[in-house]
């Protein structure tokens, strides 16, 4: 709860810090603010309770989620490099909006009332619409922002309508009250079913799960890389745990109804995400489709109401966060390579000859790709293992088979960048890397490996 309050005000301070000394202090200040916010989360540690008239719920697991989100944000801000790729950048505004969006993300993981969920979704999405369109002179960026805004606003409308329907059916916004009503009487109002489906549509859109994924490739490609990373990691984590709270802590008695919807979405996400990623030339677009397939895997962890679902989802999120941060980070570190029309080349071919030019960067890229593909000894393997174990059940066994088959497809396209790394390139000069980048890369890569070698460190802790 305290991170929300703190970040709301530190965002305002960041905004005005931009006026002093040409915004030199904005980035260090943002990292400091995020660090303080992470520490302030510990005030509520071991003190579960409700805040703001039972609008927000705080317990240790929710605090852990806030911490994961905040620490990821620190990693992302650290590699952000003051937005030199954007013309006429107002970096103070972007850092402020990032902090506001984190407020939304934390609200989405800690909500108790559906109103708070809606508020969180809105704060997070409106910030993301703005951040997507920050590169005002870039046509692709504009297209991405407009698409994201129009489709996202529509999805939010459906979400809100769903919440209203649920209220019509149950007469309560609190997820505890909803689960209480569902547990008590047998016959449920039709409004409740319609509302749940609409709520699911709204959230699955934000998660970029098929068949609500159409915005993903364009938006991921058009947005500045740093915000694509933000979208792929923080938004996904926040939404998946919002879904977890709704489906597992509120609508668990309607499992029979929603599990079929979810199963359909999982199958479509896995097929569309993996098969479309095969043909991509642009690295960002490939990662966009891979994020659709990862959305499918995350939903697989939600499919059955089990006691280990939260653990596996958190493990999956953390390993995905680490791997994506290194993958997008390598692209960011290479952004000065071979620019076209003033914009950096974001195709997979930009990695050509990386093995000789910078063995460090290529190692980071290879390990992140292996983790995303789910090869053993990386975090990605165990995350897939846990999620599939949770989903293993007579009812949906075909989904497991499908997931395993499509993971094999995934190996093909995740290995394309790895192969490109070892190809010979005309340019031989070594690449110099910013020391901050180096620290972040070491952290994320070590994290991926540690999760792969000792998964119980995280899985057993929760």
């Amino acid at each position, binding site marked *: 709860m305290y991170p929300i309050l703190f970040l709301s005000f530190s965002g305002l301070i960041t*905004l*005005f810090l931009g*006026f002093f000394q040409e915004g030199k202090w904005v980035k260090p200040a943002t990292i400091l603010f995020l660090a303080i916010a992470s520490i302030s989360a510990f005030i509520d540690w071991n003190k579960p309770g409700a805040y703001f008239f039972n609008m927000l719920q705080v317990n240790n697991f929710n605090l852990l989620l806030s911490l994961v989100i905040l620490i990821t944000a620190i990693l992302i801000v650290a590699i952000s490099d003051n937005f030199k790729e954007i013309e006429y950048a107002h970096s103070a505004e972007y850092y402020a909006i990032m902090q506001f969006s984190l407020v939304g993300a934390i609200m989405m993981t800690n909500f108790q009332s559906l109103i708070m969920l809606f508020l969180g979704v809105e704060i997070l999405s409106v910030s993301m619409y703005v951040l997507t369109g920050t590169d005002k002179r870039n046509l692709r960026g504009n297209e991405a922002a407009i698409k994201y805004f129009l489709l996202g606003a529509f999805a939010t409308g459906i979400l809100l309508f769903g919440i209203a329907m649920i209220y019509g059916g149950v007469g309560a916004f609190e997820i505890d009250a909803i689960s209480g009503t569902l547990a008590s009487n047998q016959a449920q109002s039709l409004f409740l079913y319609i509302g749940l489906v609409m709520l699911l549509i709204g959230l699955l859109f934000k998660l970029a799960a098929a068949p609500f994924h159409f915005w993903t490739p364009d938006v991921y490609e058009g947005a500045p890389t740093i915000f694509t990373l933000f979208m792929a990691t923080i938004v996904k984590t926040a939404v998946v745990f919002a879904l977890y709270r709704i489906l597992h802590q509120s609508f668990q008695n309607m499992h029979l109804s929603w599990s079929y919807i979810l199963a359909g979405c999982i199958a479509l996400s896995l097929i569309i995400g993996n098969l479309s990623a095969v043909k991509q030339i642009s690295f960002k677009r490939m990662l966009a489709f891979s994020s659709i397939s990862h959305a499918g895997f995350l939903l697989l962890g939600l499919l059955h109401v089990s006691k280990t679902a939260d653990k596996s989802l958190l493990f999956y999120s953390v390993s995905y966060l680490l791997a994506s941060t290194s993958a997008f980070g390598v692209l960011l570190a290479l952004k000065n390579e071979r620019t076209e029309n003033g914009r950096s080349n974001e195709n997979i071919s930009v990695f050509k000859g990386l093995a000789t030019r910078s063995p460090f960067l290529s190692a980071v890229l290879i390990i992140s790709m292996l983790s995303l593909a789910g090869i053993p000894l990386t975090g990605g393997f165990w995350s897939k293992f846990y999620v599939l174990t949770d989903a293993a059940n007579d009812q949906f066994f075909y989904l497991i088979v499908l997931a395993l088959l499509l993971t094999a497809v995934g190996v093909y396209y995740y290995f394309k960048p790895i192969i490109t790394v070892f190809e010979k390139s005309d340019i031989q000069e070594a690449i110099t890397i910013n020391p901050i980048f180096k620290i972040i890369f070491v952290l994320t890569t070590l994290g991926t490996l540690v999760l792969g070698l000792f998964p119980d460190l995280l899985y057993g802790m929760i």
Partner: protein
Amino acid sequence: MLSQFGFILLFIVGAFLMLAGILGMARLLRPDKPNDQKLLSYESGENAEGGSLVSFNIRFYVIALIFVLFEVELVFLFPWSVVFGDKQLIEQTNGLWGWFSMAEMFVFIFILSLGLVYAWAQGHLDWLRPDQKVNPFKSEIPSDLYENINKKYS
């Protein structure tokens, strides 16, 4: 048996029926003889000229945007003012309620005005004027020459 939603539906249906009834009755009763004068804009309305898709100055845009922002603030102020003056709540809390809601609203307005200050400091409120170019040409004829001519022939 009507649920709470049913009443709202009744209101909506009632509103449509009422409108249709009144306008339909007027349509049946009134004489219908239009001429050019009658079809003009009502009272002191301006006559429309040209197309409506003209380009207008972009400088209005930023100002209008900021204006709309503060107009929307009012949407929050109206319901607040009703709750703020709730006598029952004030009596129950011994006057604390008034101060609490007052402080809450001031925090809200403070954050909004910070936004205005930010826009001001960024220079978004400055009315950008096109640079006035001074013609560097200097006439070699002294200006009193013109005055003398004017005097002579006046």
